[in-house]
């Protein structure tokens, strides 16, 4: 039980710290693209670790008590984690593409290679 508590503390600590960094970066960075860079990657990483903590906790409780509620909790947490991993970077990519096409440019950049490539 001590090992389980240590693993839970480490994983939840990593997850909460990265979520905190993501939301602070969202507040403090200068333009859309750097905010997207900070918030999306950091919160995805942190949410993966908090979900891992829940999955490990559920499997270990199932292993100890044999209650089928916990294995259902673990499997549903795995499905939610897969949905989060697939949908979050895709949404960030769509936001960045829409921001560039709607005319919002990076604030301190000196070159815009996506505009020079004439992909549109």
């Amino acid at each position, binding site marked *: 039980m001590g090992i389980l508590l240590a693993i839970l503390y480490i994983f939840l600590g990593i997850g909460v710290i990265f*979520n905190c960094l993501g939301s602070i970066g969202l507040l403090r960075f200068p333009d859309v693209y750097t905010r997207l860079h900070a918030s999306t990657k950091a919160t995805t990483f942190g949410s993966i670790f908090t979900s891992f903590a829940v999955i490990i906790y559920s499997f270990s409780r199932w292993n100890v008590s044999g209650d089928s509620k916990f294995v259902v*909790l673990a499997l549903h947490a795995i499905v939610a*984690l897969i949905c*989060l991993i697939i949908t979050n970077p895709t949404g960030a990519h769509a*936001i960045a593409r829409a921001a560039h096409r*709607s005319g919002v440019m990076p604030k301190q950049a000196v070159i815009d290679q996506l505009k020079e490539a004439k992909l549109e």
Partner: protein
Amino acid sequence: MNEFFKIFIIPGGLLLIFMLLSLVRLILGPTTPDRIVALDTINTLVVAGMILVGAAYEEVIYVDVAIVYALLSYIGTLYVAKYLEGRTKK
């Protein structure tokens, strides 16, 4: 409640504070993509926090709600991005 309740509900409360920080950007944001980024961050934090609350109260239904919320918020983000992209194209 059992001994694991506090371990999961305290990070859930911290995620709630981070949601409020992102809400400041959602209100202040100078351009529309800033607000969409803030909304996307809030959605991710809501999903993560809902999984934690489901583990704290040992209820599976919270995690099911988190799955549906993740998919619907993804569709909402894509819809708003598509709207923003087509608005100034022509």
